[in-house]
């Protein structure tokens, strides 16, 4: 061989720590940007990333991946696949791109923070590639939906959503800022790459890719599976930090970062991915239920990854397992009811056949969530449309920024976890969200939820119209039922008989 193998020189390329002389170590690596935890530079040098890739390999492999994803798109551009796809599926795409594309770009900033402030040289190199990956994910997930902007104004939100005060955008910003954009290099490693990317992006990208393939959307399927191959490399940036933290007596801190990130990710996914998988994806294309995906990717795989690294299951594990059964049904009901406040058209997913599927996947659904949908269905069939719309804003949680809700019916649990701090009462949807706040109140205390802003008079006029204006939502882009309420027709006969 006339050229060296990668591993002949790879270690040299990540032997780059030096002792600063003209500035102090803390000036070069400010503890609050680096996440030093009092651990000196040389202790971080044992960092060993499991997924190794060199620069020349990177540009080659990534060039090939892009060639693949862009050529699938080009080949299918004239296929009318998009035009012919189910309106529920279009809603999946709109919600996904709006919530994800620019947050992926923002993740490149967090990767850049690790590339600059990480104290482990291997982490800095891997994060340099991660920074590139996330630029890819931002750019490609803007390029693909841009194809549709001239057909449907809601696709403008693939770019626009994160500039607005739309409530789901506020929730997404609060969560993503908290787990990566506003964190230090060590926290980003643990919270973004380990907790979020090994757990949740797997589910979003592989789960949705499976549904997309079932739905015949090869463009989206190949796009997001291609993205996932990058994630599975840079998601491994965080893991090797854990033994370093544990060896230096910081196990508790490591555990806490992961517990915070996992809880926060769960809440956002319950409003974003849950409805997509169990309600928007056409019934015949649903590969698994959201709960099944959660059980596979989070409960089983993530739990194993945690234990393998010598950490524990989060303290709230039982609550999480409980919420997996119901939380996203409530989120879905809320999103559908407040549908003018989102940039996609929520699919009700409540036809007789879909309800039978829900009952099978979530025994007891008909007796609980089904009761609410019965009322909505009756109003739709009776033409009482006004009663299927909200007049006010829901109570939202001061942590996840999402509507506080719980399973209706006999087992109804009042869900409010108030907490007083410095004379202000905060409302939380769950013990988990309240616990996150208590870990670091200064981090969250001055933030106003949408409802807090409403009560403070920042939203004028103080009605739904004023709220929509505040959220940058105008007719032509505000959400409505994806199927123009056709799903309710299946109940008309039944309802006639009953009356």
């Amino acid at each position, binding site marked *: 061989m006339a050229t060296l193998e990668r591993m002949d020189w790879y270690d040299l390329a990540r032997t780059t720590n030096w002792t600063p002389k003209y500035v102090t170590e803390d000036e070069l690596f400010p503890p609050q940007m680096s996440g030093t935890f009092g651990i000196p530079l040389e202790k971080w040098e044992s960092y060993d990333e499991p997924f190794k890739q060199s620069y020349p390999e990177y540009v080659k492999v990534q060039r090939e991946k892009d060639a693949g994803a862009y050529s699938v798109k080009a080949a299918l551009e004239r296929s009318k696949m998009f035009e012919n796809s189910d309106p529920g599926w279009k809603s999946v795409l709109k919600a996904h791109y709006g919530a994800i594309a620019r947050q992926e770009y923002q993740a490149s900033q967090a990767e850049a923070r690790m590339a600059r402030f990480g104290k482990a040289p291997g982490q800095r190199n891997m994060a340099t590639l991660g920074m590139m990956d996330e630029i890819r994910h931002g750019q490609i997930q803007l390029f693909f939906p841009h194809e549709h902007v001239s057909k449907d104004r809601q696709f403008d939100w693939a770019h626009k959503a994160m500039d607005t005060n739309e409530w789901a955008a506020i929730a997404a910003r609060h969560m993503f800022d908290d787990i990566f954009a506003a*964190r230090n290099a060590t926290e980003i490693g643990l919270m973004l790459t380990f907790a979020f990317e090994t757990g949740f992006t797997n589910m979003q990208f592989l789960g949705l890719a499976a549904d997309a393939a079932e739905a015949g959307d090869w463009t989206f399927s190949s796009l997001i599976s291609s993205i996932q191959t990058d994630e599975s490399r840079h998601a491994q940036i965080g893991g090797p930090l854990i033994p370093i933290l544990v060896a230096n007596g910081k196990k508790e801190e490591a555990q806490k970062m992961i517990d915070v990130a996992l809880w926060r990710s769960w809440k956002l996914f319950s409003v974003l991915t849950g409805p997509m998988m169990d309600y928007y994806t056409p019934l015949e294309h649903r590969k698994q239920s959201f709960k099944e995906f959660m059980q596979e990717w989070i409960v089983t795989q993530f739990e194993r990854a945690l234990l393998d690294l010598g950490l524990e299951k989060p303290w709230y594990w039982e609550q999480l397992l409980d919420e997996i059964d119901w939380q996203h049904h409530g989120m879905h009901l809320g999103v559908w009811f407040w549908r003018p406040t989102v940039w996609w058209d929520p699919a009700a997913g409540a036809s007789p056949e879909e309800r039978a599927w829900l009952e099978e996947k979530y025994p007891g659904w008909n007796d609980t969530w089904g009761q609410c949908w019965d009322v909505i269905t009756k109003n739709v069939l009776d033409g009482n449309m006004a009663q299927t719309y909200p007049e006010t804003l829901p109570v939202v949680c001061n942590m996840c920024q999402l509507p506080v809700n719980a399973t209706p019916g006999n087992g109804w649990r009042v869900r409010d976890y108030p907490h007083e701090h410095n004379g202000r009462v905060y409302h939380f949807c769950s013990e988990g969200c309240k616990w996150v706040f208590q870990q670091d109140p200064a981090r969250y205390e001055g933030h106003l939820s949408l409802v807090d802003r409403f009560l403070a008079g920042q939203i004028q006029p103080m009605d739904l119209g004023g709220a929509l204006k505040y959220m940058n939502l105008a007719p032509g882009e505000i959400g409505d039922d994806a199927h123009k309420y056709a799903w309710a027709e299946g109940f008309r006969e039944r309802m006639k008989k009953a009356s």
Partner: protein
Amino acid sequence: MSNTEVLKPLKTWSHLASRRRKPSEYEIVSTNLHISTRPGAEPFELDPNVFINRWYKEKRDASPLKHPDWNAFRDPDELIYRTYNMMQDGAETYVMGLFDQFNEREHDKGLSPNWAGTLARLYTPGRYLFHTLQMCSAYLAQMSPASTISICAAFQGADSLRWLSHTAYRAKELSQTFPDKGFGANERKYWEEDAAWQGMRELMEKVLTAYDWGECFVALELVAKPAIEEAVLRKLGEAARHNGDTLLGLVIDAELADGVRHRRWASALVKLACDAPGNAEAIKGWIAKWEPLADRAIDSFCAALPDVADAAESAKQATRAFRRSLIGL
């Protein structure tokens, strides 16, 4: 809401739609991507006084370098991720081809032990220097006020890893022909102790801690990188050619092509910045502050370089020629 108009689909993103020109792929995927620069909002959707909000407000938003619309910045190369990889995969195939051919011809065996010693002292320790460029570019990538700027800085960070990788590769390869020169072993010692490197080390340690984004941009792009490119790349390349090290000369040429591209975006940003009052003065002030340190770095490095006449003087002149070429200053 009955008299409100109903929004119609547009041909592109609403933020680009008012312009006449059809947006390029570059503009569709690169413009206005920052979330942390929403007008009137905190950088991050958390408590306004949390550490990282203060950091961004102080070091980015309150920088002396100010412009009403940083999002107007465009990379003159219109590079996007997809095209960056096409370009750099080609460039790496070329460099790997050089490594392959020169190895085949036993290039290193033809180098004098003396020159090998120079390489161990003045070439392979450069990976530490290139790594500081990688880190500093990553800082600019996270602190710049517009995504079009951040993306240029991020690509530059990846290019710095490229230079570092070539240097690590050669350190290993040279160690096989010259096992007694300390290749792959003594680089850190040279970087931390040899007089030739101390100017560069001091320069970059200090540039890395210039946390105001505007000052970081000026110190890195207009002062430090030109100094490094002219001395540690170009002048070392000249010395290499003189000493029969054709390979190093060619590898450095390939790296300098990245450097030329970096100067293109930096020049375009200076031009945009100088549209707004006060910025030219701020930039000049920072150049005046950092130039002496960069000159000393060039002096100490070039003093150790064999066989290049007037190396330091000509490198310093070249950095000034670049700065004189900047429109708006």
